[in-house]
């Protein structure tokens, strides 16, 4: 597994998300209410909308377009019109830096 540094934890709002582009792909990185970090594919599985623009409450991200929702820890689609799960990737914090494994 190759870990890539995606930014600083302090740059992500608590219960928030940022967009991370790497290798021609786009991802979303989340900081949970307990400061844990997670990474998922960046685009909603309904239409290709950036989830980092969506509202994060607890461990749920709501798509900004049609209010589909996902559990960003598991990628599970929780609410229609999103019905396909999101891909997830390992994420961790080391010395205040967020690292993700996208391989």
């Amino acid at each position: 597994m190759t870990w890539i540094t995606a930014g600083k934890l302090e740059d992500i709002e608590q219960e928030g998300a940022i967009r991370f582009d790497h290798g021609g792909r786009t991802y979303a990185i989340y900081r949970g209410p307990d400061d844990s970090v997670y990474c998922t594919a960046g685009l909603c599985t309904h239409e290709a909308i950036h989830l980092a623009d969506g509202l994060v409450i607890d461990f749920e991200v709501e798509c900004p377009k049609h209010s589909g929702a996902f559990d960003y820890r598991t990628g599970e689609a929780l609410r229609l019109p999103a019905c396909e799960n999101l891909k997830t990737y390992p994420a961790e914090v080391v010395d205040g830096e967020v690292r993700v494994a996208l391989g």
Partner: protein
Amino acid sequence: MDGIVIIGAGESGTRAAFALREAGYRRPVTLVGAEPHLPYERPPLSKPVGGMVQMTPICAREALEAAGISYLEGCSVSKLDAVAATVSLSDGRVLGYEKLLLATGARPRRLACPGAERALDFRTHADAEAIFANVAPGRRVAIIGAGLIGMELAAVLRGKDVAVSVIETAPKVLGRAVPARFADKLHARHAAEGVRFHLDRTVAAIGEDGVVLSDGSILPADLVVSAIGVVPEMTLAEASGLATANGILTDACLRTSAPNIFAAGDCAAVAQPGGGHIRHESWRNARMQAETAARNMAGAAETFASVPWFWSDQYDLGLQIAGRPQPAHQTVLRTTAEGELEFYLDDGRLVAVAGLGFGNSLAKHIKLAEMLIAASIRPEPAALADPGVNLKTLLKSARAA
């Protein structure tokens, strides 16, 4: 008679069919749709990506099959007999029903001037194909009506280097649904993109070469599109004696004047707690009403309650509005790096919010404001105005209180 028949396979009818199964309804569900495709999304029609008209199905054919929904595609209901509880189909069949959902949507309002038949409508996939097959860089398109659909079309056509004129009877664009602040901003953006506006003008006639305006001037056009709003499709409801006004009238549970017939979506005018009926024309409303109607047809007795919400995309700007902003409301403006949010207070209570910004960047604030509206909060105007105050904090403190 057995089973539920749904008339109209648009956003509302299709969602209702699935929601019936989700509510545990096991008897036959028949979805009758006049258009010759799988049920599809309308919003992408005015937001084509890469110049192509998008056909975005609401569901796959396999999903309909898996849910045991019989979908009668390209088939219309020509008669509803509410006494015998039957519907007659265009192919001659007659279906009986135990309960019926009218999800017939809306159809474009037609111009009444000479030559009106030369103008194309913009409601269906077929309409979109007819419009986009006829545009090319340098061609001239006249759009009649500066509402959301007309303005979205103008933005798309400018992206294709088409010369666009917009004609509007009112002195302002987007008058009906969009607060003045954002209507003005969108107007300015369209003007900067080269759209030519002819406001405060009516159309006297449409000829071979273009549009004749009420002041006698002639606007040359290769193509004329009429986008002057829609009227609820209630032909069947009227002919069968159901109560109608500006829509098929329902009670708060979405039941029409016939107890086993429900209505949802663009065609339904729903009784309000304070009296009167309200009809919405938006994507989310069509889905939410479908879900409530489906649960009620399956035996529940839920009243429909939801903060209305819609979005519109024009150029790289995203507009979202939740609630119903009124000119009499107190307004509070919040300016952020991504755009502007305007909050609407009625006697101190937050009742509506609107935002205009780059792409979907304001969506999460609108969503939080919507939750504040639903919770009947009376926020401090100063907190709403301050971009440093996270709306999530307001929501959490309101919930804790």
